[in-house]
């Protein structure tokens, strides 16, 4: 299925969860937060399959402010 991850279109395995997405993209799973379709996707739901064509944002702390 297709997802948009941080603005880029990505082809991922059907039924991909947030946890699995991070693994497939080689991203760390600590110190990050995920939004799906403009809402917080809490860690407690990271093993659920993401909706097809979802707009996913993966964010982390950087220098700022």
């Amino acid at each position, binding site marked *: 299925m297709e997802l948009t991850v941080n*603005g880029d279109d990505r082809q991922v395995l059907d039924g991909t969860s947030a946890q699995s997405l991070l693994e497939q993209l080689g991203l*760390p799973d600590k110190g*990050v*937060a995920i939004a799906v379709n*403009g809402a917080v996707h809490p860690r407690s739901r990271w093993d659920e399959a993401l909706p097809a064509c979802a707009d996913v944002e993966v964010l982390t*702390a950087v*220098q*700022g*402010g």
Partner: protein
Amino acid sequence: MADRPGEPLVIAGRAFGSRLITGTGGSANLEHLRAALVASGTELTTVSLRRTSLAEGGGVLETIRELGIMPLPNTAGCLGAAEAVLTAQLAREALHTDWIKLEVIGDEKTLLPDAVALVEAAEELVADGFTVLPYTNDDPILARRLADVGCAAVMPAGSPIGTGLGILNPHNIELIVAQSPVPVILDAGIGTASDAALAMELGCDAVLLASAVTRAADPAAMATAMRLAVEAGRLARGAGRIPRRRWAIASSPTEGRLQI
């Protein structure tokens, strides 16, 4: 009236020995940042939330935590209340803190706060359980509104972010201090140590600055200067300055002078 100089800064029931809050933005690299953070003596420092792919040279959170400093996520760059609220909620997920430096800016040229959206976002975040520290204009009425909706502090700008223009309206800052039921933290516009000292002399409870240190030619030296300036300003505030006068008043005895 200022509290006693040695008293800790207390925000939402949490005490900080240092009254200098730093930002981590603008540092050339983590080594410079680490040296500046140590020199500043800060116990609270801001970080931003960005897409992971853009987190080049990451590891800022590890550096902060190694130094025993509490990270304060911000909503820097957010242009509306909805974006700021979502960013705050994501920061809570990523960093496991419900403290947020709330920034809702009106445009990217001035980076000045959007007052209406700021109050709206603050109210929503307070209701959602956040400890909200809003970056605000130097407007005494707006500061009162923010305290009214439950913000844990108010953080008026001395001048626009990154300008180094210092405190453009000291009188407004004094008015905010005189009326605020929550700590007042001078945030943004600090250029050099005298600006930070002035903020404390005006009665602010703390100073938040980033660029003045991270973009200085010698960040660690400037961080030391800022630490001393905040302490000096706080001491001076508590010590009670002399009144300003139009005409000179001699400090030496006027009697017993040589007669020729």
